[in-house]
């Protein structure tokens, strides 16, 4: 269904075999193809626009005009720019000077937060930490049980003082979890929260209250890699409503191009820290910008 960007650009730029400056018309034609490729990969329109301008700027420069194959050179620029955006300021998790480190998970309904809590907990324990999972989604039917099952599978303690399904105060649970963690000598607290929409002011306020009660060292925004143009609006809402310190891209084991990652990076300015790549607890990896850049371009 999707032609790769290489195919497309080769089509219009192979004519320009010899060295020489690309004309503005050449660059515009290339820019149109790049735009289509990005849109088909679900990069959001406003982000596509900014990106294309940056690529055009570079395409007018010496590195292209002196290249043997200007088409390949343009692709290289696009690829590099993508990696730059996706990987800028790559960093590790921030840990608290005074344990416990608090990691709060937030995102839309069904994005992959609860599953990630289990994965992240397992991964951190393998690195010698003592994580505690906190069941602060008291809304979604059986979210508490789900986290308990995951905790059991990963052999992690789950703090779940409330049954959920509408019963209990998630802010209180999150607050109490910190005391519990100190008592149990847990050095990391991972707070699972209910899925919420950016447009739901009440639920966004609840997320902010959980944040205020726990002062997270990391607030990770978990987003489904299949998301389309709405990524910008949603990321803005979580950025402004909860404050995001990092991003996790979930369901990357699918065949979506994952252009939403570019949108989220652009909007939040925060790094993508992890990739969630399956339903099992070890389907989890640190994020690799180069892999996603290639994937967005269909390379």
């Amino acid at each position, binding site marked *: *269904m999707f032609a790769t960007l290489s195919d497309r650009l080769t089509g219009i730029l192979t004519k320009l075999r010899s060295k020489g400056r690309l004309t503005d018309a050449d660059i515009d034609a290339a820019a149109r193809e790049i735009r*289509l490729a990005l*849109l*088909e*990969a*679900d990069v*959001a*329109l406003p982000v596509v626009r900014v990106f294309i301008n940056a690529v055009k700027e570079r395409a007018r420069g010496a590195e292209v005009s002196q290249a043997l194959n200007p088409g390949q050179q343009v692709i290289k620029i696009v690829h590099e720019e993508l990696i730059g955006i996706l990987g800028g300021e790559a960093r590790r998790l921030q840990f608290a000077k005074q344990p416990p480190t608090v990691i709060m998970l937030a995102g*839309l*309904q*069904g*994005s*992959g937060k*609860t599953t990630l809590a289990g994965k992240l907990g397992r991964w951190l324990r393998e690195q010698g930490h003592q994580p505690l999972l906190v069941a602060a989604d008291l*809304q*979604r*039917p*059986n*979210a508490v*049980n*789900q*986290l*308990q*099952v*995951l905790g059991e*599978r990963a052999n992690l303690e789950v703090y779940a003082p409330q049954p959920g*399904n509408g019963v209990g105060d998630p802010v209180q649970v999150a607050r109490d979890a910190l005391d519990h963690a100190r008592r149990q000598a847990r050095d990391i607290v991972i707070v699972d929260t209910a899925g919420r*929409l*950016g*447009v739901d002011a009440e639920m966004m306020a609840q997320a902010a209250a959980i944040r205020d009660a726990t002062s997270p060292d990391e607030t990770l925004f978990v987003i*489904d890699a*299949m*998301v*389309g*143009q*709405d*990524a910008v*609006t*949603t990321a803005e*809402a979580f950025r402004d409503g909860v404050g995001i310190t990092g991003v996790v891209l979930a*369901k990357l*084991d*699918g*065949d*979506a*191009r994952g*252009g*939403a990652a570019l949108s989220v990076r652009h909007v939040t300015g925060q790094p993508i820290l992890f990739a969630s790549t399956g*339903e099992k607890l070890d389907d989890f990896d640190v994020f690799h910008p180069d892999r996603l850049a290639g994937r967005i371009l269909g390379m």
Partner: protein
Amino acid sequence: LSRDRLDEDAWEEVEETLLGADVGVAATTDLVARLRERTRVLGTRSADELRAMLSEELVAVLAPELDRTLAAHRVDGAPGVLLMVGVNGSGKTTTCGKVARVLVADGHSVVLGAADTFRAAAADQLATWAGRVGAEVVRGAEGADPASVAFDAVRRGAEAGVETVVIDTAGRLQNKVGLMDELGKVKRVIEKRTRVTETLLVIDATTGQNALTQAKVFTEAVDVTGVVLTKLDGSAKGGIVIGVQRQLGIPVKLVGLGEGPDDLAPFDPKQFVAALLGGAP
């Protein structure tokens, strides 16, 4: 679309409205070409007229004449069987609960079959919904064969003489061949006993272009008869269903508008298009 002359800016605005709603490049290009042709022939001058025409075209692509009722009722002395399928987290289990709610409210009896034996607490979640809406649930052990749980559910529904059996399945990404085969088996095993009257593909409205691939591959596996577009209560427009309808002819039948039992509505093409174009519904 507020200008009163059809300059290139007006066209660009049309294009960006569509692309920004996840309608996709192919469908957008198609629609814009048709509109350009129509405005040329008709001599359309105002952006208002263009907007009205765009709305008409979009509604037309969604085939408003199609029958969007659910085949959920008893036929030939057997319960209607709904099979809920889709990628992970799209809203299948919730939709099973909501659909049961509508049927129960109409005085029908419903069995919910928990054929997601894989995800943590998936059967508990469906059981909670069953309790909420007054339906019976049939479930198997964690890790049990989903096809046999589905079979047990339709058998129970037939024995109890219920109106409808709704089968919830585990979320799966369409590029997982083994899981897609498993889903095909679930359907085949049910069909050893009775007909699946409706196979609903649940698509999250925030989904981008990947929904086209979802619709294609799920249809190949289990012959999808309708789409449920969930999470339309968020900021996403769900424009990808235009491509799904256009390429595969699968109509949207229901929309999900929240997490509560009553947050389900029939799909209304006109209302959907109005919301997509940013106007009042």
